[in-house]
């Protein structure tokens, strides 16, 4: 089981801030493909990956990174703090 978190407009499009998933995805990209196939709202949220960022266990990462040992995946748009 893996915790998947969504922030900002990704959270709004998917409609929930967080969910627990059972997945066999090897990389972040595999997980994205699984999510896209689930429901239209996921397909929309993940339609343009260049507009998305991913963090693995609270460290910024890449879409081709492996999920092995990861407990928390977060998807969100580019940050706009400061």
């Amino acid at each position, binding site marked *: 089981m893996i915790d998947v978190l969504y922030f900002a*407009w990704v959270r709004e499009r998917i409609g929930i801030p967080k969910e627990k998933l059972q997945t066999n995805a090897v990389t972040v990209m595999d997980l994205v493909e699984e999510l896209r196939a689930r429901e239209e709202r996921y397909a929309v949220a993940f339609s343009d990956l260049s507009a998305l960022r991913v*963090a693995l266990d*609270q460290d910024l990462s890449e879409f081709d990174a492996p999920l092995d040992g990861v407990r928390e995946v*977060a998807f969100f748009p580019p940050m706009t703090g400061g």
Partner: protein
Amino acid sequence: MRVVVQEAPFDAGAELNAFAKDDTDIGAVVSFTGVTRDVSGGLSRMQIEHYPGMTERALTQICEEAQTRWSLADVLVIHRFGTMEPGDNIMMVAAASRHRADAFKAADFLMDYLKSRAPFWKKEVTTDGADWVAAKDSDEDALDRWN
């Protein structure tokens, strides 16, 4: 080093006066304060979402990186989340050093990294509705200055 992520307002002046107060060998303190700006004249409020846990972690890493790059006596980052009115302070950073160039560079670096690497997202609520603030290419490009 002090990293604060909070919903409550903070007093930038009081923070500046308290910062690096007990260091006798500093000559320079540079601070940056980010203020909720009413660009279009129609902003009613700004909402800031963040990623609890990762936020503190990312800000701490950015401060540590600044401390390895420059000789700093102290570093401060305060960033708010939640709802802000126009004119409210959103955040501040400060860097104290023996030399002014180090303090300026460190504060500038902290801002550039905080902007694009700390998990905050701004949403502007205007009379026309609410919109997530788009990240600027110029903010991402600014990071190249530090490579």
